[in-house]
């Protein structure tokens, strides 16, 4: 059954699998309501968006929200490590593509945003159907490579494509040693966070414990780079420190807000007698 476009759009927030199995029924209920009111309802649209998003984030499976937070913190550490390696090894220690005036700046920002989205897509994809999950997982490594390789090489050699991806491999060891012991576990955990969408852990308690451990580790890493101005590539390092920190905090705030949505929605209105 082909749904009218208005209802297809209204249901977009829901995972694809759910839309296929339940979409026609939800659309019918929406259409009945619209007929009664004589117009489409914004309240309905808002509720669908919230509900669909909560479902995507895996509202029923606690621990997913924490994973998103962990992903943010880990990415923050990785970016910090890369900023250091990129400055020292790609640009000869003189400048950074992170500089506002640098030609690679907007590339870096745009690709950075992609990285946020893709990293969040790991846990998000886990709540969707298997096809979505596979796409999210498949996209994660190449985008990671793109994010961490293209900007630097773009500035220096005007190289793109395979060459820049191979060049990334040169930087990896320096990146790991550069940001101390934290980057290696962070890289490992980032991979795990991305891949866990492939096969969700069966036991909720174990998942929560792992997610909590990731958040603690990420927090330590970020705090370390935040408070030490002498930490190479850290968030407190250099002229662009403020902008980098602001970008990270803004992205983190958005994802934490999404995570909060997951935690709060199913627990809303605990008692029937409370409302009016």
């Amino acid at each position: 059954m082909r749904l009218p476009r208005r209802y297809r759009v209204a249901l977009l927030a829901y995972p694809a699998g759910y839309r296929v199995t339940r979409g026609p029924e939800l659309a019918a209920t929406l259409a009945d309501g619209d007929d009664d009111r004589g117009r489409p309802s914004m309240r309905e649209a808002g509720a669908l968006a919230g509900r669909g998003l909560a479902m995507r984030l895996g509202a029923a499976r606690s621990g997913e929200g924490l994973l998103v937070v962990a992903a943010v913190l880990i990415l923050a550490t990785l970016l910090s490590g890369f900023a250091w390696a990129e400055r020292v090894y790609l640009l000869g220690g003189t400048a950074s593509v992170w500089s506002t005036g640098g030609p690679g700046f907007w590339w870096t920002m745009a690709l950075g945003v992609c990285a946020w989205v893709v990293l969040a897509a790991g846990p998000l994809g886990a709540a969707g159907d298997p096809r979505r999950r596979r796409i999210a997982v498949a996209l994660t490594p190449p985008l990671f490579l793109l994010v961490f390789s293209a900007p630097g090489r773009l500035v220096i050699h005007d190289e793109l494509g395979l060459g820049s991806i191979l060049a990334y491999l040169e930087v990896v060891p320096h990146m790991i040693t550069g940001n101390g012991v934290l980057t290696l576990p962070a890289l490992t955990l980032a991979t795990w966070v991305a891949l866990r969408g492939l096969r969700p852990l069966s036991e909720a308690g174990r998942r929560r414990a792992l997610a909590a451990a990731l958040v603690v580790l990420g927090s330590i890493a970020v705090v370390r780079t935040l408070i030490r101005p002498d930490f190479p590539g850290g968030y407190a390092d250099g002229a662009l420190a403020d902008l980098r920190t602001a970008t990270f905090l803004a992205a983190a705030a958005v994802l934490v807000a999404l995570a909060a949505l997951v935690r709060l929605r199913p627990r809303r209105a605990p008692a029937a007698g409370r409302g009016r």
Partner: protein
Amino acid sequence: MSEATYYVLASLLDERLHGYGIVKKAALLSGGAVKLTTGTLYGALDRLVGQGLVDADGEEEVEGRLRRYYRISGKGAEAVRDEATRMRRAARAVEPRSGRAAIQGGGR
């Protein structure tokens, strides 16, 4: 039990209903106070079906619209009646005659 869940169950006590039928019945039963959105309704229905409190009970297509019907299970009826009892007790705690007024009067 949330207010939405309560009224979804309550509206199914007398008869099987499809999605929008539940929305209308819940509004009627609550004197217009509970306006279930489609998102909330299906969130509650999915959960209730999963818990075995509500069962899907056939479907039909009317003017190109898919209508799936739901009916309350024995377990569901029991759950909503338990909740009603609990709320009656809670209401008694604040209603002037039976509970609080008597206690306050006695305290003076």
